[in-house]
């Protein structure tokens, strides 16, 4: 199991800020595809992904116990 942390529009879309996911062994890219299909998250191309408080690329492999944060860029200012 891994823990997924959601911010801004992703949090609003799901209605909670954390989710558990059995996704260890898959890549970040595969995680994005699953989220797109299961929860119709869009704009995942420019979302930033951090694992255990460190940014990672789409190729990163997810491990048991990882805490993954999806951080959407917002433009306001």
């Amino acid at each position: 199991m891994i823990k997924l942390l959601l911010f801004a529009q992703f949090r609003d879309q799901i209605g909670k800020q954390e989710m558990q996911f059995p996704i260890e062994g898959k890549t970040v890219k595969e995680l994005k595809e699953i989220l797109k299909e299961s929860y119709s998250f869009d704009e995942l191309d420019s979302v930033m992904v951090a694992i255990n408080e460190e940014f990672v690329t789409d190729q990163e492999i997810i491990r048991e116990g990882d805490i993954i944060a999806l951080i959407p860029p917002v433009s306001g200012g």
Partner: protein
Amino acid sequence: MSGLKGSTYMKRYSRQTLFSPIGVDGQERLRRKHVLIVGLGALGSSIAETLTRAGVGKLTIIDRDYVEESNLQRQLLYSENDAMERMPKAEAAKRRLNEVNQDVEIHSIVGDADVPLLERLAPNIDLIMDGTDNFDTRFMMNDISHKFHIPWIFGSCVGSFGSTFTIIPGKTPCLQCLLKKLPMRGQTCDTVGIIAPAVQMVTAYQTAEALKILSENQWALRNTYVTFDLWQNQTLSIKADSIKNADCYTCGHYPTYPYLQYEATTKTAVLCGRNTVQIRPATSTNCSIAVLADQWKKAGYKVSANPFLVSVLKDEHRMVLFKDGRALIHGTNDITIAKRVYHSLIG
């Protein structure tokens, strides 16, 4: 030092020089620095006020918009009067900042932060602060920062959510490394709102980092991407070093600065979430807004003007024309309709 002299000067900044990492020497270093603030909405006005009070030597401030009533809830520098008179933000900000601290030289620009302007300003700038509300301008600033080796401090917020990151050319990853490409339109302040503390939190981080850079305490820089939600009580501080991309078009080994080239061709922009289109002539002109205002009045349109701009109501659209020839057309997101309104009034 036109305002307060000698010992008064030191007294003014005493609580800042007592803070040992800055000290008297750091204060003197702040006084010799020139900061560019792009955008003077919520982030930009808070940044401008903090840096002015801190005694930074010179600020160049740029904004293309004017003050509206809905700004007053969070944009610190503006008054009800500014909103009523539709004062350009850069001008209203300058007036207020001059009242706050006469020591600081404020150079205000009412206009678009486009490539030619940024390239002209860059050689004299020590630090660029992000006060914008759109990624088009941020990607341009990111390219300018790397082309001219100037640090810049990204900040953005919406709702109760905010993010900031300090970008140092040659050291940290850049905005392009973080986002890969220009993001699609996401949430904006006009669709989901914004609370002032989210703004203040972002600018507290941004200006703390600015003081470190300007007082030459780079060793103290944070080095992480901070993101938080003040309502949901979430905070993350994320290491970013590993995503610096050696092939990045902005900060990699062979940069091409793509957003400096792209922007050069843009003449219209839909202002994110504002139901507004901006139209900018290919070269900036100095148009006689008084003459145009007269013509429109005679034609029966509802017109109001100040020395910097004229506002005219045509059917359901309101057009605001600035002296440099730039126009904002409110009431549409459609460039074609906006152009039609623009050309119907200006020819």
